[in-house]
């Protein structure tokens, strides 16, 4: 090999030098340089600068001035709401903060379900300890499940599964082309268990022929772990554009007995849902350990193939989103009337902050509520109200009174512990 030693290179018909070489080994290219592929393997140790506004370096791309123009990021929308999960940081717990009952009893929109147990697990909204990784990412609350004492051991029908239900129209209108295997939804969450073992989670469609996608996560004991799973669309998926349940997300399951598991279950692929093949068979350690714990926070589901940082929302915003499904008023003032002669039912109109998903079930758990009618006091002695109608932000409920009143008397009431439930 020989070396051509020149200082400059110019086209034979050109009027200016195209390349100017310098003694240190560098070169300056003038004018427009066209190349098919630029493959830079080594040598750029600091950055590439485009004008004064764009710098590309090992740590990323920095753009000032007009910034970056692009069609999308991660194949999905750039701005706006990304997280399809409501209350994914467990900020809102209208019902309470601890319960040994099954289902929606503490953190809103979350259904910690269990069955076949000797002693029901405890579900609780708890604080995330400062200094932990999720705390440093802005999470202050978590859902904690504490196992009961399962004296019979792991039974075929035993299970403990933290569950979230997506409203179908939220998925149908999300931008996820769920029938296309090249379109993705990415789920992510933080999890910590007191027991090191492999756990399984799954998403299960509810419309049409049920489909299920199961994944596994191996956890170390007492260690917060960030889990990310990217799930493709599938031609067999149906999601209606309505207010029903679209997908049930069993985020990560502490235990499921053999009624729900099978050793031949394939992971990370869509299958037809069969109740007895939801996950592979389970290690029983968590379930057979009295007071074993399991914590979750930072649940996010977003359209696209990449997990982005958690979309933190304000408490007020999350609460309003939750109230589409459940509302609890410790006190609410409302007015109404008595429709029938010697009537014992007051028809009260309640104002609610958002239209609810469906006609809600109603209960007033405190019987000591008072109504005022022409200066007299009377109690609402019924705990179950009869919903008469619901239009947008108003609903009418018939409540039984302890005193009969004359027809068409109007009344004002302070109702206590009013609950309206339209959960999925």
């Amino acid at each position, binding site marked *: 090999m020989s070396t051509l030693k020149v200082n400059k290179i110019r086209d034979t018909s050109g009027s200016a030098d195209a390349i100017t070489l310098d003694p240190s080994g560098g070169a300056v290219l003038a004018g427009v340089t066209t190349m098919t592929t630029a493959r830079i393997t080594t040598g750029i140790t600091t950055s590439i600068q485009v004008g004064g506004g764009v710098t590309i370096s090992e740590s990323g791309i920095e753009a000032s001035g007009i910034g970056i123009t692009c069609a999308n990021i991660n194949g999905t929308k750039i701005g706006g709401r990304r997280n399809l999960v409501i209350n994914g940081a467990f900020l809102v717990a209208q019902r309470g903060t601890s319960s040994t009952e099954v289902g929606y009893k503490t953190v809103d929109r979350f259904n910690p379900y269990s069955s076949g147990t000797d002693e029901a697990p405890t579900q609780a909204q708890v604080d995330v300890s400062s200094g932990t990784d999720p705390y440093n990412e802005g999470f202050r609350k978590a859902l904690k499940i504490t196992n009961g004492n399962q004296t019979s051991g792991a039974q075929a029908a035993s299970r403990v599964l933290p569950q979230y239900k997506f409203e179908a129209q939220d998925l149908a209108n999300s931008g996820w082309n769920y029938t296309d295997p090249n379109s993705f939804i990415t789920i992510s969450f933080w999890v910590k268990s007191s027991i090191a073992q492999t756990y399984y989670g799954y998403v299960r469609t509810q419309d049409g022929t049920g489909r299920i996608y199961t994944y596994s996560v191996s956890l170390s004991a007492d260690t917060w772990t960030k889990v990310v799973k990217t799930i493709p669309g599938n031609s067999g998926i149906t999601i209606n554009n309505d*207010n029903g349940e679209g997908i049930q997300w069993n985020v990560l399951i502490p235990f499921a007995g053999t009624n729900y598991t099978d050793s031949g279950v394939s992971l990370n692929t869509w299958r037809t849902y069969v109740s007895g093949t939801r996950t592979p068979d389970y290690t029983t350690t968590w379930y057979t350990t009295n007071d074993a714990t399991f914590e979750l926070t930072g649940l996010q589901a977003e359209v696209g193939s990449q997990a982005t940082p958690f979309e933190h929302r304000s408490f007020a915003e999350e609460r309003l989103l939750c109230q589409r499904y459940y509302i609890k008023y410790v006190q609410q003032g409302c007015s109404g009337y008595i429709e029938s002669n010697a009537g014992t*039912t007051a028809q009260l109109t309640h104002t609610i902050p958002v239209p609810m998903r469906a006609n809600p*079930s*109603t209960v007033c758990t405190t019987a000591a509520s008072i109504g005022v009618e022409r200066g007299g006091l009377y109690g609402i002695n019924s705990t*179950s109200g009869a919903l008469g109608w*619901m239009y947008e932000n108003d609903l009418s409920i018939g409540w039984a009174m302890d005193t009969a009143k004359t027809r068409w008397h109007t009344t004002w009431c302070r109702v206590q512990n009013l609950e309206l439930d339209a959960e999925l």
Partner: protein
Amino acid sequence: MKITSAKLKNSEFQDTVIESLIIEIDGVKWGVPKDPDNQMYQTYLDWVAEGNTPDPAD
């Protein structure tokens, strides 16, 4: 969600457009509208399908 009792309820008001039931679930008596989208009513329908019968209205 376990139903321990259910009772039919007559419509009481002229402008009532939703019929209701009284259903005791997990020890709490809820007023439950006959709305197929209501989760408790769905549970009630399953309960009836299992052979249970609600109490008649007063």
